[in-house]
Structure formats: C-alpha cells, structure tokens
C-alpha cells in the first residue's frame, strides 16, 4: 500500500541521516559504513518499488516528471493535515 511504502522510505531516510551524524564523529567506523551502504541499497530498492506502483516518489524541482506536468505544486504539502494519507 502506498502509505506503508512511503512510511518505510521515510524510516530508511531517517536511518541514513542518523548514520551520517554518527559517522561525522566516528569517521573510521567500518560497522557504520557497512550499515550505511545497506540502508542506501534498501532505499533505492524501496523507491524503485514505489515508482513502479505509484509513479514518481517525491517530486523535486529537478525531476523530469512522467506526465510532463508541473507536479511540484500538487497538494498536499508536507505541513498540511493528511499529507501521509495522500
């Protein structure tokens, strides 16, 4: 389901961010680098899966959208209620 998959990607994004903070103060940690590689791989798999089922994952201004429309403007924006429901 779209919402579950989106949530999973956000969770992996968080793990990647958390590992990058850890690596800032433990730059020689092989374990953290290994985990980072795993999560980056998982992220790209999840995004492929998402895009196969639902189209573009997160529209950014430099994406070439599949429809050729300026989807950047589409609701809801992240701070709006029901953003996760979309």
């Amino acid at each position, binding site marked *: 389901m779209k919402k579950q998959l989106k*949530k999973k990607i*956000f969770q992996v994004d*968080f793990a990647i*961010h*958390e590992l*990058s*903070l*850890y690596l*800032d*103060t*433990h*730059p020689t940690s092989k374990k953290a680098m290994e985990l980072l590689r795993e999560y980056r791989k998982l992220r790209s798999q999840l995004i492929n899966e998402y895009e196969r089922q639902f189209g573009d994952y*997160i*529209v*950014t*201004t430099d994406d070439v959208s599949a429809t050729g429309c300026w989807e*950047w403007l589409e609701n809801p*924006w*992240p*701070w*709006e*209620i*029901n*953003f*996760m429901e979309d």
Partner: protein
Amino acid sequence: MWKYEKKLQYPVNIKNPNPKYAQIIISQYGGPDGELGASMRYLTQRYGQPFNEVKGILTDVGTEELAHLEMVCAMVHQLTRNLSEKEIVESGFDKYFVDHTNAVYPVAAAGIPWRAEYIAAKGDVLADLHEDLAAEQKARVTYDNLIRLIDDPDILDPLKFLREREIVHYQRFGEANLTHSNRFIIDYIVVGKGLSKHGSPFEIDSESN
C-alpha cells in the same frame, strides 16, 4: 546549498485544532531555545571551525534543525486551522492573530519575536561546542515542559521524537568536543601553534589545507 524534499522528517497529523497549545508550541520555532535558533547557530558556527569533523556535524545537525522547525511550524499550522472568531478570542490567540492571522511567525510563547541574540558563534571550537551542548539541553527541557502541559497523543508523538533528537545531537556534539578539545587545547592553547604562526589565532590552519 540545500535541496528541498517535499516531506517532513517525522509525520505531523493533528486531528483537533487547539490554539492554546499552538501558542506554547510556537516557542520551539521562534523562542530562545527553538529550532530556528538551533539551525542558525550551527550553520553560522561552521565557518569558524578548524576541524573537518566539527564542520561536518555542524552542517548535518544544522540541516536537520531546519527539518525540525518545519515540523514545529506544521504543528502550529494544524493547531490553528479552521478556528471560529469565538475560539480565537477565548483561547487568547487573538493577540497573535491580530498581527499574523494564520501565518506562522517566529515568536516565543510570550510573544517576543525571534532574536539573533539567542545564538552565539565565537569562532573557537571549545566555546562553540560548549554553547551547542547547552543549547541541546535547553531545547530538551523546553520539550519536557511542553510534554508536561499537553494532553493530546497526536501532538505528543512528534514532540517526543523532537525531544529525542536533542539527546542524540547532544551526544554527537559531546563526541566532537571530546575528540577535538584535547587536540585544540594542546596544539593551540598550550603550544600556541595558532598564535605563534603569524601572531594571530585566525591563522589556524584548516585540516583540509
């Protein structure tokens, strides 16, 4: 430079508007220990740092703080939507509303607009990292206080996430401080490496040089 991702770091979805809660939560946007100050503090301090690990952690935590101010603003935005005039007056939100309507403006809970005096950038790794350690603890206490005063699981969930991040950042700044303060003290304060080179502490070499 930065790129925007059209998402929140952690979801905010508040079913029931509550302008009273909005008025205290807004302090974590524009208050003395809020997320706007946090991001400006770390991103500003970066330019005065001699060590790459410190430049890295200030950049990455400072960037995360931008995501946090967006979450706090999302909470305030959702808590102040669809209000009647009666609700605005009775909750005391009228004093904010008259100047800002439904915009989210950086003020402290008592209404004082955000000030640059809330942050410090001394250009010294010891002074700046200790400022940052204190800042994370002050923000954590503010989240503790909000969690005490608020009784709505939709609000408590993102607040608890944000509180936890203060603790993680404190940990990472502490590690950066432990790694670099000894090195800094011996090289630059005891041996006077930075001072002796050209007689000015501003000549301390960056690691990348």
